[in-house]
């Protein structure tokens, strides 16, 4: 009779692996493209457009909330680069656990800005992203096909 507590961990099931991969790819693409669109204006992509768009975003949020301009501007000007970086890392599978956690924090910070301007529809959309990230974190031990996996898997 075998001791159940001493049995080796079950081999990762395909369903979990596939579920996590799909979540990772979705969140990676979503985050990457969300970062990319920050550089767009009238169909053209440029750094000038990026700073113009982010300036508008920061001023808009500050104008409609209690948040100071220096804070919204600091956040806005780093947001696009963070989204690109985290999106690319998720797609490639670089340290997925830490990447997912940081992406989740970023979406919570974005939600905070939209909560401050009472943009409930946007908050709900970001809430869906946050739930997906939380789900992905629960499945992260099944991470496969990754460029640089976490040590603990």
């Amino acid at each position, binding site marked *: 009779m075998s001791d159940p507590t001493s049995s080796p961990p079950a081999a990762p099931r395909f369903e979990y692996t596939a579920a996590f991969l799909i979540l990772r790819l979705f969140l990676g693409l979503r985050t990457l493209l969300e970062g990319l669109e920050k550089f767009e*204006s009238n*169909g053209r992509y440029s750094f000038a457009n990026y700073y113009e*768009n982010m300036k508008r*975003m*920061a001023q*808009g949020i500050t104008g*409609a909330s209690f948040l100071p301009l220096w804070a919204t501007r600091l956040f806005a000007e780093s947001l696009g680069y963070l989204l690109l970086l985290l999106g690319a890392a998720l797609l490639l599978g670089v340290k997925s656990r830490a990447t997912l956690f940081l992406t989740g924090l970023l979406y919570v910070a974005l939600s905070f800005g939209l909560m401050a*301007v009472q*943009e409930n529809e946007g908050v709900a959309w970001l809430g869906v992203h946050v739930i997906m990230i939380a789900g992905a974190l629960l499945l992260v031990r099944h991470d496969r096909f990754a460029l640089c996996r976490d040590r603990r898997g």
Partner: protein
Amino acid sequence: MPTPTLPGFTRRDFLATGAKLGAALFAAPYLARSAPAGGGGGSLNLALIGCGEQGRVLLNAAFKIPDIRFRAVCDIWPYNRRYGERLLKKFGHDPVPFEDYREMLAATPDLDAVIVATPDFMHAEHTNAALKAGKHVYCEKLMSNTAEGARSMVRTAREAGRLLQIGHQRRSNPRYIYAHDRILREARLLGRVTNGAAQWNRAVTEDLGYPSGQGLSEAVLHKYGFANMHEFRNWRWFKRYSGGVISDLGAHQIDVFNWMLGANPVSVIAGGGRDYYPNHEWYDNVIAIYEFPTPAGTVRSTYQVLTTTSAGGGYFEYFMGDEGSLKMSENPKYTKLYREARAPEWDEWLAKGLIVRPGSGEGAPLPVRPWEKPRPRVPGLSSPSSVVDVRETAELSAWDMPVTLDKPIHQPHLENFFDAIRGKTALHCPGEVALATAVTVLKVNEAVAARKMLAFAPEDFTA
């Protein structure tokens, strides 16, 4: 042998000079008649006959115009007369009040012009008397409740050598002028105009009353042609005083048909009736179809005026062509240009500034919140679900005109009248033009009564 020409005077110069000379000759009657009243730029002395609703609208529009002075007001109802007098005094004028227009004309000889805003059946009498007294006249529309009355006004103005402007104020609205001159004539954005449609749908209104103790005596009412106080206050609904709703509301828009299409109609068929208001005489709903002969072909235009519902988009005039359509209204929010999908692109006109992309309303991009940026347009992805039937054609694209009127709607028309008196411009709606409109409008009532299509003769439109 070559034709000798003056040095530096080419055939093109000759044609251009000829065209200018022709235009000057055409405008001459309206320019030459204007005496240099007010010293060609000085203050004009004015009087108002009729201080009721429309008279007050005109006063409020006139207050914003410099170099005019109201010297007299006239109304048979003391209540209205006092109101007009007080309103004018509030704005720095010092008018003398009169009950009878004859006394006013006799006692105020230095008037330059008279504004007539009385019930339609009095227009001819008041206008003709003022013209014969040597005054220029601005008379409210409809010119008269009879075609003969309108003709008499044209003839009197001609004989007196004085200006007669009729209050079809859309003709001085810069947005309407722009649509006529630039969109329809210069750029011809509508292609061949095939149809027109206009309407004025207005919700139920209560009859007008009057303050207790302020009614006119029967003797005074009868003296001035009114049966009783109810008809005096609600004259627009009774046949002896007006042409009914087709004249009261329809006249403005049917005038726009004649103007924009550059033609008078050849026929009209109409239906209507007094179906809702038991204590009125005139029809409370009228629907008419006109045929206009234009150089490009027949334009068939529908007109409806409903007084029991404001549904159906309010009031507007629509001109539809094979390449585009123009929806006009005094209310800018109803104004729009539409391009047919088969028409050449309008980018050229956009680049020239003739038209603009809508900033608001139909065709405008979805509203963007202050912290958002506009979303990129994706061709082919716009509302595919809106096509519900294979017989539908592609959706029209909506455009705006870069012209707005930032004054009361009657002000530019009054300004045009005053400028014409000073000899600076020609009238936008002289009596001859408004006579054609009056004939076009009044025939609708005949067609409703006759229950058949009626034809216009060219001589109907002349005095």
